């Protein structure tokens, strides 16, 4: 039983490390934003494994939802400006 939880934590840790490296090394800005959202969502699963459900809910709603939405709004605004010139 404990082993299964440990393996789940190991998989989540690998997803977070590779995802954050990918978000930094890729050229496409939109891809980087979406992969950052995935990293933030998997960190909320990590908070759940640390027995902190309050922080997990807050991270899933604010850190993963609204922060990614703000980045996408900014990207949209920058792209709109690029079309004009």
């Amino acid at each position, binding site marked *: 039983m404990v082993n299964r939880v440990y393996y789940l934590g190991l998989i989540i840790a690998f997803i977070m490390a590779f995802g954050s490296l990918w978000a930094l090394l890729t050229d496409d800005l939109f891809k980087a934003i979406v992969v950052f959202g995935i990293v933030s969502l998997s960190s909320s699963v990590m908070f759940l494994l640390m027995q902190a459900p*309050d922080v997990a*809910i807050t991270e899933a*709603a604010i850190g993963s*939802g*609204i922060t990614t939405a703000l980045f996408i709004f900014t990207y949209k605004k920058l792209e709109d400006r690029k079309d004009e010139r």
Partner: protein
Amino acid sequence: MRDERSLFINIVALLILSVIGFYIYKVSMDTGKGIKITDNITPQMRVADRFMNKNVIKEESKYVWGGTAENTSANIVTSVVVDYRLFDTTLEVIVLFVTILGFGFVIPKDKRKIIKPTTILNRWAPILMILMLMIGGYMFVNGHLSPGGGFPAGAIISTAVLIGVLAGRKTLSQKTLKIIEAVAGISIFSLGIASFVITGNFFQNFILNDRIGDLFSAGLIPIFYGLIAFKVAAELSNIYFEFYEEC
């Protein structure tokens, strides 16, 4: 972005940072004579132990730990956030207000053409909004019994406003948001002053003597969490209106 592709700089930076990271990990997990940051073995030395046997107020105060459980709310994190550290939480909400005020000043306002929303989004937006408002309301009403609380509840309620903005429906005006925010902020501080008049301590809980685990328990904690939820929702909704302003 010329130097971003240079392989040498990337590899050197990764190597240096991984060495530093390895030493920090070694120090934090050390159980020998070195500096010891974490203490996972003896639970008597934790911060929570001092929190449980808290005795910093006068002796006749009702804040002394009763011997079986924490006597304010069932969720201990909530009773830390909204009871013992309420000064921190209110000042943090004020910091959020100031950053979003600065956001409104800094962001450039220009004309942009509004894309008409599709029929599916326009028809389904009210149903989704009702569901989101129900979930948000449940979260701050039950913040002292189950995980959740005011901050994610405010975020979810502001997401309902966001869907209304995206679907092109008129939900709230910016003046209403400012009134909600001002009323919530003023009532938090007026409750604090009322508790100073009644008990003698600022922000002290003055409704006690009820069973842990009931819906109507924990005194002022659900009221404070509801006010915080409305204040956070109004502040976050301001961001969306700033982005999608029809000029």
